[in-house]
Every structure is written in C-alpha cells, then in structure tokens.
C-alpha cells in the first residue's frame, strides 16, 4: 500500500495526460470505423456475395460468408454469354465524349466570360445561369420529342415526320448536353482567381489566345479539370434516365446502367437453372463489376478532388 502510494505520483501525471487524450481518440476511431463500415456495407456485401455459392449466400442472411469461394459468377459475367464488355465500351465512348466536349466548351466559355471584357458578356452569363434553376425534367420530354422528330434522320422527312429520328441511334446519346452551364460557371470562377499578369507576359512574347489558353491557363486549370472529369465520368457511367428514354430498343448501344437493369434478373437463366428465383450471387457480381471502375477512378484522383472543389467553391 505504502509502496504504491509513493510510487503513484511519479507515474500518475503522464497517465492522467494520456487518459485525457486517448479515450477520445479511441472513440473517434471506433465511430469512424463503424460509420465507414455502414457506408461501405452494401459494397462489402456485394463483393462477398459475388464470390459465394448459392448455398453459402443463404446460410447467413445478414452477411454472406463465402465458405467455399467461387469465381463462377464472375467468369459467367465476363464470358461471351453476356454483353457486358459491349456495354462498358459503349459507356466509355459516351463518357469520353461527354468529358472532352463539355471541357472544351467550359474552358473556352469560362475564358470568354471571365478574361475577355466586352459589352453583353454579363447578360449572356445571366441568361446561361438562369437555366440552373430548372430541373432537367422540364426539358427532358421535349428533348425526347426533338430526337424523335429530327428532320431527315431515321426515316424522317424534312418536317420530321414518318420515321423515328435518332431514337435508338447513337446520335441521341451524344447530341445533347455539350454546353453544361454548371461547368461554365465553375471554370469562369476558376479563371477569375488567376491574375491577368500571366497572360499579359505571354502576349508580350507574341502568344495568341489559343497559345495562352493552352500554355498559360491549362496547367493552372488542372484541379478544376479533375473535378469536371470525376463529376462527368460518374454522371455518364450512372446515367440511366436518358439512355432509358432513347436507347431501350437497341441493345447494341446500351450503356452499363441500362444493361445492368436488363441483366440483373437473368443469372439463373444464364446458368441454365429455372429462373423462378433471383440469382443473388450473380446479381452482386454484376453490381460490383459496374461499380468497380468508379471506385478505382475515385481512389486514384481523390487527392486532387478536395483541392479542386476548394478552387471554385471557396475562392469563387
């Protein structure tokens, strides 16, 4: 007793200090880990389910434990019996197009709206901005009608009657959305944070506007371009409503999210089993496969992402 009492003063101060810091720290980590697991639970569930056999999958309903891991679902999914690779290629074509075109428009337009001074500029900007107030659904149906009534396309005559226009054709998936006002706004804000001195110095050296954009501004726009890349890649990869509207009738141009819906219930059919029940392990292989590219892309680009968001959302 006595020994302990004399011993304690020497030990207690650091102990007390640690006690003050550590439990809070541990609680923080526990909370973070639990919450992260909740957020990622369906993903983990999907990965585990996709490598389970049908028996293992139903054994523990709250989380599938693959006692005998199998790649059957994955090899079936990636084999020639499903058109997933076609859908991936289609989606990548669309994503590439919808990253490059809106990026060019946003860089050029953002430059004009921020760095060039001329009459009518701000009126034009407000005109563009007003559209952000309206949800896309307002013009979705008429745009669908426009695609269907496009003159001289898909059997249509000059007045757009008689055929089906661009419906179920590639142009319907590529022709809208080149001008994205959100990105124009984002790039205008980013341009306005860059001082004009850089451009003036380049112009003294004889550079034209395109040279200035390419050599002076483009390197400084990288974080904002990364944000555009991530947003657009995710948006196009997951775009469901518009492809559903305009491409349901043509399997060759289906994108991943549309194809996913069509293939989700056909696991048992592909395996030659009675299709009375849903083949969950196959469904989860398909779901995991559809999500994977986005997660990999995000993990690679994550560190530029917050920086890029900061560039236009805080300074701007």
């Amino acid at each position, binding site marked *: 007793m006595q020994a302990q009492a004399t011993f304690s003063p020497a030990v207690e101060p650091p102990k007390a200090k640690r006690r003050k810091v550590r439990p809070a720290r541990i609680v923080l980590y526990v909370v973070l880990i639990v919450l992260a697991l909740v957020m990622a639970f369906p993903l983990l569930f999907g990965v585990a389910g996709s490598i389970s056999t049908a028996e293992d999958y139903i054994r523990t309903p709250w989380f599938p434990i693959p006692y005998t891991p199998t790649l059957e679902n994955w090899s079936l999914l990636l084999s020639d019996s499903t058109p997933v690779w076609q859908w991936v290629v289609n989606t990548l074509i669309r994503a590439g197009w919808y990253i490059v075109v809106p990026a060019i428009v946003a860089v050029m*337009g953002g430059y004009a*709206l921020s760095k060039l001074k001329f009459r009518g500029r701000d009126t034009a900007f407000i005109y563009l901005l007003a559209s952000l*107030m309206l949800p896309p659904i307002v*013009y979705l149906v008429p745009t669908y009608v426009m695609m269907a009534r496009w003159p001289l396309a898909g059997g249509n005559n000059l007045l757009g009657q008689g055929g089906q226009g661009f419906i179920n054709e590639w142009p319907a998936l590529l022709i809208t959305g080149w001008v994205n006002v959100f990105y124009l706004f984002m790039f205008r804000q980013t341009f306005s944070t860059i001082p004009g001195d850089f451009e003036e110095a380049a112009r003294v050296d004889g550079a034209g506007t395109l040279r200035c954009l390419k050599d002076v501004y483009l390197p400084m726009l990288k974080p904002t371009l990364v944000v555009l890349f991530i947003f657009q890649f995710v948006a196009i990869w997951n775009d469901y409503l518009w492809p559903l509207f305009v491409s349901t009738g043509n399997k060759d141009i289906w994108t991943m999210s549309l194809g996913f819906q069509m293939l989700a219930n056909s696991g048992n059919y592909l395996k030659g089993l009675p299709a009375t029940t849903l083949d969950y392990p196959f469904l989860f292989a398909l779901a995991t496969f559809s999500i994977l590219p986005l997660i990999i892309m995000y993990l690679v680009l994550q560190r530029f992402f917050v920086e890029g968001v900061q560039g236009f959302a805080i300074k701007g």
Partner: protein
Amino acid sequence: MPAGAPSLAERFTRWRFRHRQAFEGWLILTPILLYFSFFFLFPLFSSLALSFTRWSGLSGSPVWVGLANYIRYFSDSSYVQVILNTALFAVAILLIQTALAFFIALLLNEKIKGRGLFRAAWYVPTLTSAAIMAQVASVFIAPNGGVINSVLLSLGLPPIIFYVEVGWMRVIIILFSVWRGVGGPVILYLAALQGIHPELYEAAQVDGARRRDLLRYITLPLLTPMTIFVLVTGVIGTAQIFEAVMFMSKGGPANQTNVLMLQIYQDAFANSNIGIASAGAIVLGLLLLVSSLVNIRVLSRGQIAS
C-alpha cells in the same frame, strides 16, 4: 513628332486589343449561346406549351385543353399526394443529409490515420449508380429472406413487409437517399473546413477559448456560406428524387410513396399523356424555383442576424 506617333500607334493597338476582346468573346460565345438556346429554350417553351394540351406523344397532334392539366395536378387527390410526397422526401432527406455531412466532415477533418480511406468510404455510395444500389437495397428489404427481415426473425421480432407498410417504406427510401447523397456535401464541407486558416483557432485558443467555443464562434459562422450553398443546391437534387422510389417501391403501395419525377415518367411513357407530364415538369420546376429563392432569403437573413 516623335512623341505623337507612338501615342497614336499605342492608341490604335489599344483599340485593336479592345476590339479583339469583343471579337474573340463573341466568336466563342455565339456558338455556345446558339446551341444552348436550341437545347434549352426551345424545349422549355415547348414543355410550357404542351402542358396546356392533351397529347399522347405517339400520333396525332396536341389538343388545347387550357389549364385542365394544372387543375388536375392540384385537385386530383393522387396528384396532390405525389406533390406532398415529393416535398416530404425533399425536406427530410435534405435536412438529415446536411446535418450528417456537417458532423462527418468535422470528424474527417481531424488528423487521423488512414484519412483518405475513411473519406473514400463516404463517397462510395455517391459514386455508385442509384439503379444498382437500389437493386442491392431491395435485397435488404425483400419480404422473404431479405436481410432486414432475416435479422428481425432471428431476434424473435415480427418481420416488416415493406411493400405494404407505407411508413416503413418511406423510412427506407429516406435512409437510402441520405446514404447515397451524403458524400457530396461531406466533400464540400471538407473543402470549406480546409479553407479556414488555422491561425484563427490558435488566436482564439491563446485567448482561452475551449473546443466548444471554437466550434460555436469560428467553425459554424465560417461554414454558413457553404451551408447555404449545400442547402440551395441540395434541394434541387433531393426534390428530383427518382431512382430510389422507382426501384424500391415503384411509387407503391397504392401510389403512396410516388414522387413527381416518377409520376412524370409514368405519365409520359406508360400512360402516354405528354400533356400532364409536361404540366408536372413545370410544377416541379416552379416548386424548385420557389424553394431555392426562399432558401436563399431565409438563410442569408439568418446569417446577418448571427
């Protein structure tokens, strides 16, 4: 006159420079504005015009019906229910999501090991297509052998039949949407938190401020602009709730969880009634416009008061 010539030349260069800006400005903006008008203004006005008509969209031409579609939207009880559902979902999801995002961003802004991975976990649901995740979620709420019901059964509790119980279906739709939508606001709040100068905290700590005070008097006020941004842009997203409802409840039971976007979709494509679909789109557009304006008004006043 060595002094006059350069000034004239200088003036000319300056004039040409100014001229160049207008020339290049319109060279860039003209195609953008033309394209934009073609794909925005034209559909917008045809949507407006079609909302006063009855038209199947398949054949024939639109028939003028005046305000009939709008009257139906605000008197037919099933359409009123749809508007109320949309408002309920939009507000509930937005508030829960924003509060959660704020709290989580504070946690993720701490100096912790593996911060990148924790942050990524919060963004994963936002990355994934709602179509896919709703399919996954439906596995959880399936009446027989669904994850939730299996757990309830093993705990000796009665199972919940989500497809019949409206209240639970709504809860599931809200939880699902929050889970999916919280990632974006978390990133925005993180960006805002990192924009706060650490010196502010240090100065306050020197003056004897506690952790709670730092949060109350520095972090909260400095994050107000971001909160306005998150709420205003957020309501535009949450009011357009579509996939969660389409894939989990299809608006059921008895249309009681249906929302405007899904109703518009069903009217336009399943019921072949472009007229009322267009009216629905205009109603949604107006609701969003009003709520954004109210949001901006109320929140900016609150900011001035505090």
